[in-house]
């Protein structure tokens, strides 16, 4: 390698290193803002905005869904295993919304600890399998489709 090329290669390496360091610092500083949702267990430790408006993420607890028979009003509990938060919502739920499904609710937490959702999104997990395989796993009692 000629000295000129070596010099250019050094410059290229320094450029990538510099930009990489800058990005790493920026990402670390903005860590909290990069989170799309907060899990029930993290509510206490997170700095919530003053009007307690944020996105809550977790699994819909089994047996917690209660639908109003005359309106779109629904209540359910979002859990991450350790803690859970009751949620109320009035509106159309996504196709994937069901018990045990990952959901992200945007809204605010009132003083009584009830989360009033304005929007509910389903969070799909990364498992893909045919229905027969899922049924076989169910019969065997093996877990599948768990939101990490």
């Amino acid at each position: 390698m000629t000295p000129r090329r070596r010099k250019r290669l050094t410059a290229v390496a320094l450029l990538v290193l510099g930009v990489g360091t800058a990005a790493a610092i920026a990402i670390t500083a903005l860590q909290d803002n990069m989170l799309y949702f907060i899990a029930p267990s993290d509510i206490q430790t997170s700095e919530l905005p003053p009007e307690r408006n944020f996105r809550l993420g977790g699994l819909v607890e089994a047996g917690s869904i209660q639908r109003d028979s005359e309106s779109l009003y629904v209540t359910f509990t979002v859990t991450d295993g350790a803690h859970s938060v009751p949620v109320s919502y009035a509106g159309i739920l996504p196709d994937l919304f069901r018990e045990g499904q990952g959901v992200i609710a945007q809204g605010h937490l009132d003083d009584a600890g009830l989360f009033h959702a304005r929007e509910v999104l389903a969070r799909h997990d990364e498992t893909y399998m045919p229905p027969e395989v899922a049924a076989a796993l169910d019969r065997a009692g093996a877990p599948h489709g768990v939101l990490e």
Partner: protein
Amino acid sequence: MWTQTKLAFHKLGSPLTFFRFAQALIPWLWGLTLVGLAVGLYQALYLVPPDYQQGDSYRILYIHVPAAWQAMATYIVMTILAVITLVWRIRTAEIMAMTAAPIGAAFTLICLVTGAIWGRPMWGTYWAWDARLTSMLVLLFIYLGIMGLYAAFDDRRQGARVASILILVGVVNIPIIHFSVEWWTTLHQGSTINLFGPSTMDPSMLPPLIWMTVAVKLMFGALLLQRARNELLEQDQRKKWTLQALRMSGHDS
């Protein structure tokens, strides 16, 4: 071995050799691409079973995921070419680095659009400003920025060098895209296919993903060689070798 590789590398640096290499390879790459797409689409749309949760909607992933992988792979190829451009100043590398950008942008667009179409019924929204979706959108803008910067220079070679610096700056976004679903909470699900570790997709659903991914890679190769060949001819249209090259590929009249 090393000297032979080095020699082949330098030979490809000559416009005429590159042109002939491209002309010979393009039909093969397109032929194999079409075979791969045919098998992949047949499997993706007909052969594989539906998903236990999403039903048939998950079939979108057979275009979404290969497009996303190619969007990122294109950028990695461009980064390597950008280093060659800046350090060794090989002209064919410069041209390939620049002509890869619109192809990468196209695959990024496919990824974003198919993801949005899938997101509406599954998530309940077309778009969310989570780390994965946002960093992918940033990738599209980086591609457009590289294209714009290159086009802004009258001196193509100088433009390629300046745009190569932008390629190197933008490469930080690639690990961010990849790790976004691990570093932060996102609406987008985590990685299904893991090269190092278990994948969370039933083996019966994997073959179309592999076929489509390989087909997309071959297609990228064909598109890149076509665009690079065009750019080379256009830049050198007043040089003697272009006419000689066209004669060789049967364009004389």
